[in-house]
């Protein structure tokens, strides 16, 4: 599934793929921002972990009821088992060990393996949903800007309505009604999250439209679609990439929030799902709630750093 | 003409300490401004004339800018070092500034009236009525029609010339004795330029006001200036009365500038220009900063920085070419 999102990225990054010099220029600028590089590093690390990690970690769904709620190395936990006949407790101390470097959850599942699986899901949802949203947004934005007139009007009114719609409520509503699966979550986020991109890209495309080279192409008799795909889209692509990298954190957060309130895909282990379980055992096993939260935080932070740097690299004048 | 110096600038150096290096925008400027005279600072863009103007009131961005050396003596006080509070009492009151682009120099979200009255209230002890009356009078003097309406207008509601005049009105609101006009006509069209030049000339005549007029346009210098200082590479390369500078320029750079003036009488086929670019203020050429572009360059020019020397009482130049130099 990750390869799918990579190919989506490649499609988005198409023009750069062709124009290596431009890419090199931006890369040079990006490199100047250390936080951004750190963010990119973390994202790549996460991606590698997400792709190859499962080969090395244990099965994240494999319960080992011998070691439930095992703490990370260096910590201990007291467990007492009640004897119904004698009415007293047998105590044992559970010590963290290297077999489970980040401890286990209440079902004895390896936290490391679960976090790795969660990384995979977060990235998958984040990239794919953003991909859909940004693709739609670009398409609608460019279409709207280029065609203008009543099409523009209709599309922008529609965008307004979509923007007013309470996004999270809609997400909960649809996922509740149609069942929680990753596909539905990705689709809903993707199909509702395009509004910001559409508006931004429309305004960018509008300003591009009046520029000389478009007029020149028109004068040379290029068709509308040709102009749109050969000129407008490549020219808004940097904007698209920045939009994408800055909206991924929100998507990841939305999926986590959804899973946190118990509407996550029950067949997959995402950070939100672990958090949801972890909040019930804060006192017995703090690490179950703390670790995925930290991962979520770091991932979102990394994307924010990276997106921020990317935006600066593409457009030093832009603010925020 | 009163020969008493109202403002004296000595060896002023304003440097900008940026991440890429030190920009020596103003690098040793000396001049004295006399009461009632109009001193023109002339030069190409980037030569340091605007920074010089800003330095007089310490209005450049700091950091990264800093006056590293030199004095600006006004009424016995060194404006380059005095406490900022004191400087603020002088800003807008004794020394006022008019900027190049009124469109961006006026705050877009306050009315013209508010912006003028704000300045009046800062420096003068007038009540609102009196301040309003004064503002009205100022605008009227600037020949702005429908003064009352203009007072309640926002900058974007006015035309470019009106805005520029409103700004001049604002700068005059506290009757300053020195007006620094930083290319006040660059951003306006020809008819308005004429109006503004008229206003400035009137000010000079009627109010006995000293004006520091910054421009790259020698034709304006001829129109309004008493004396002119030519700036190159952050330094004054020649200073003299306008007539003399225009007719007997001593520095090759000044000559270059003058030859660029379109001469209606001459029949030259193309406009002459000075070869090359203004020097990079971060990496000044050694010796005379002008030497890479100078058509009369000598060996000494490449290594020795020429000092500003008087060739006449009223005419000083910094060039190794000049016979007096070094003697």
């Amino acid at each position, binding site marked *: 599934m990750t390869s799918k999102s990579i190919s989506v990225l490649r499609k988005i990054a198409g023009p750069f793929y062709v124009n290596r010099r431009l890419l090199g220029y931006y890369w040079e600028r990006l490199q100047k921002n250390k936080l951004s590089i750190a963010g990119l590093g973390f994202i790549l690390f996460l991606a590698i972990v997400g792709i190859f990690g499962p080969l090395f970690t244990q099965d994240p769904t494999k319960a080992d009821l011998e070691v439930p709620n095992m703490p990370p190395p260096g910590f201990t936990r007291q467990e007492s088992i009640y004897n119904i006949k004698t009415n007293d407790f047998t105590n044992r101390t559970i010590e963290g060990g290297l077999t489970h470097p980040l401890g286990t959850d209440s079902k004895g599942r390896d936290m490391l393996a679960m976090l790795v699986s969660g990384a995979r899901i977060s990235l998958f949802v984040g990239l794919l949903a953003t991909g859909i949203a940004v693709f739609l947004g670009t398409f609608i934005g460019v279409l709207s800007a280029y065609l203008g007139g009543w099409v523009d009007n209709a599309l922008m009114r529609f965008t307004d309505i979509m923007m007013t719609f309470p996004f999270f409520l809609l997400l909960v509503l649809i996922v509740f009604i149609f069942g929680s699966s990753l596909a539905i979550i990705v689709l809903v986020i993707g199909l509702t999250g395009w509004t910001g991109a559409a508006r931004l890209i429309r305004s960018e495309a509008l300003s591009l439209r009046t520029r000389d080279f478009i007029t020149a192409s028109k004068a040379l008799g290029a068709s509308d679609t040709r102009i749109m795909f050969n000129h407008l889209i490549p020219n808004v692509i940097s904007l698209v990439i920045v939009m994408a990298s800055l909206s991924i954190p929100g998507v990841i957060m939305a999926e986590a929030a959804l899973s946190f309130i118990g509407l996550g895909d029950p067949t997959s282990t995402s950070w939100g799902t672990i958090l949801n379980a972890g909040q019930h*055992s804060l006192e017995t096993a703090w690490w179950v709630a703390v670790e995925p939260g930290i991962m979520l935080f770091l991932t979102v932070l990394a994307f924010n750093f990276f997106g921020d740097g990317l935006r600066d690299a593409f457009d030093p004048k832009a603010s925020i | 003409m009163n020969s008493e110096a109202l403002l004296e600038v000595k060896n002023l150096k304003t440097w900008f300490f940026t991440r890429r290096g030190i920009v020596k925008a103003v690098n040793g400027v000396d001049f004295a401004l006399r009461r009632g005279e109009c001193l023109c600072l002339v030069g190409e863009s980037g030569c340091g004339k605007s920074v010089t103007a800003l330095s007089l009131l310490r209005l450049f961005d700091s950091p990264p800018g800093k006056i590293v050396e030199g004095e600006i003596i006004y009424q016995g006080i060194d404006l380059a070092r005095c406490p900022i509070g004191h400087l603020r009492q002088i800003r807008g009151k004794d020394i006022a500034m008019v900027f190049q682009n009124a469109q961006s120099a006026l705050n877009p979200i306050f009315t013209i009236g508010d912006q003028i009255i704000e300045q009046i209230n800062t420096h003068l002890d007038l009540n609102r009525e009196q301040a309003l009356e004064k503002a009205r009078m100022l605008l009227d003097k600037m020949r702005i029609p429908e003064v009352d309406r203009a007072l309640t207008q926002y900058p974007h509601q006015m035309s470019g010339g009106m805005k520029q005049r409103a700004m001049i009105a604002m700068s005059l609101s506290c009757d300053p004795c020195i007006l620094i006009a930083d290319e006040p006509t660059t951003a306006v069209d020809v008819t308005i330029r004429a109006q503004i030049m008229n206003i400035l000339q009137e000010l000079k005549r009627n109010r006995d006001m000293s004006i520091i007029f910054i421009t790259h346009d020698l034709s304006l210098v001829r129109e309004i200036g008493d004396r002119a200082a030519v700036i190159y590479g952050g330094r004054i390369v020649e200073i003299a009365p306008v007539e003399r500078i225009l007719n007997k320029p001593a520095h090759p750079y000044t000559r270059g500038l003058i030859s660029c003036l379109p001469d209606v009488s001459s029949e030259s086929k193309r406009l002459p220009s000075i070869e090359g670019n203004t020097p990079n203020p971060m990496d000044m050429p050694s010796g005379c900063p002008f030497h890479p572009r100078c058509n009369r360059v000598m060996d000494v020019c490449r290594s020795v920085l020429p000092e500003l020397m008087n060739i006449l009482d009223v005419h000083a130049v910094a060039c190794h070419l000049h016979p007096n130099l070094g003697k």
Partner: protein
Amino acid sequence: MNLKYARSGWKLIIASLLTLSTLVGCSAPVAKGVFIEGDVTGGEAETLNWILAADASSFGYVGYTLESLATYDNQFNIQMRCLARDIEVSSDGLVYTVTLRNDLKWSDDSQVTADDYVYTLKNLMFSDWLNYNYRDDWKEEVNGQKVFVTPSVINNTTFTITRQTVDPEFIYTLYDLIPYPKYISSKYEGNVAAFTQAKEFNELSYTGNLGPYKFKEWLRNDKFVVERNPDFFLGKESGAPFFSEYVIKMFGTSAVMQGALEAGDITYCGIEPPNVPKFKKLDRINVYTVPTRGYNLISYNQRANGWEGLRKKEVRQAVSMAIDKDTIVQKMYLGFAEPAFSFIPSSSPWYSEENVVKFGVAPLTGKQKAMEQLKAAGYDYTNNGDRTVLMDKNGKPVKLILVTTPGSDIVESMSLLIKQELSDIGIEVEVKMVQWPTLLRQYMMNKAPGSDEEPRYNNGPQAVSEEPWDLALMGHNTDPLAPSGSSVFFASDGGLNSFGFFNNEIDALFKKVKSRAALDRDDRKTIYIELARVMSEEQPVDFIVFTRANRGFQKNVKGIEPGINMGYNYYLWRFE
């Protein structure tokens, strides 16, 4: 989520009172303090207009303000000190005569009469326009037809219920009866919308002196508050109840709720097994470990879309042996549970260990025994690499689907444990977590293939569910007093026999226990002992464990009698 059986849950919560005699001699403490009970949000009631409710909590909430006819203590001894002074059953077991107290008043000061009860039964609970969810409780089968029992008014304080068939356990339904005031209800009769939205019913403003508390406030998702009823019919001499308010406070998670108990912010709540030792160590808290009505089971799908092996008793027994109950008690419940072998809990008066076959505990447990029994039943093993794999009759590896619902940590863990244990005997298990409504619709409801009958939970032996499944892990509730209610699951015609267990012996026993033959308590116990034996041997399902609950109270609460019905005397609790 549990399949809540019958009227089980709400008896626990409904308050009951000690007989007046026990009160004589008690000094009357002064009412003080607010008792705050913690509950998790999912447990909140649906409505105070109880006749519309389908959940146990609604009856529980109403119970604070309105007593039932009778109740029982922790040992299931009937306590005749609620609204009924006496309930008498005729010797033939057909006529129930209820005598009400004569000091019962509605809020308008009018007397609560037998007529109110008969009206409630006839015009509300039995009516079609209101469609009381549990009206089948009041029906009996006569000549193949389900008909209502017959209530009739004898005098102001006496009414009778007349049945045509004997059901020794019908009396428990009767004990729980609560009335609507006729003088208000008659205004809304026939208009379901008006009745539903009637302010009097939704704010319990009619309850007069019928309960220890009066309704005060209900902030949804947050708190249900009742305040002391100074007119309470049992409070005149004793001063009961002794709390100025009784609050049920909702919490989002039980972790926060237990934190609140620890901090002393609330008076009482349930404690989860891992936290019990910590709370037991606290000086301020008393923890009572008490039996519950809840048990877990694995249904074996014996219908045509389950593995055919499960239709054989020996195979079911073998699978049950592979799942070790003591392991589940220790690992899942940290000891707070006991192995179950039938639907009759050890707290029930009808419980006996006699003749029960104990699959899943030593000695009838273990991988070896299970595999031997499977081989004996005619199934072969092959070795696939390092794994031993059980083959079905067609020579394919046996793969089973276990369905259960997500949300409960223990249930999820248990399904994983079962997967592991069955894999040890060569059976691969796929765990499917599906939401409750999906589980009901696609896995439990069934109909004969090709027919156009309405899907039900039991559409006869030919019927199958939409989705195939083999094992279903669920939680059920039982009624220790009247376990025969479980016939809905285990009788051939049981409405919830969705897993297709059909056994004539069991059917006969269920019939017998609900007949004249069971009128005598000893006879009834004999029947239940036999029922438990057949159940444990037949293994229609694998009964896993009966759970224990831990209830934590602030130590300054006095008057608590720990037990399965510990709330029965809650109105006498007080702070000291």
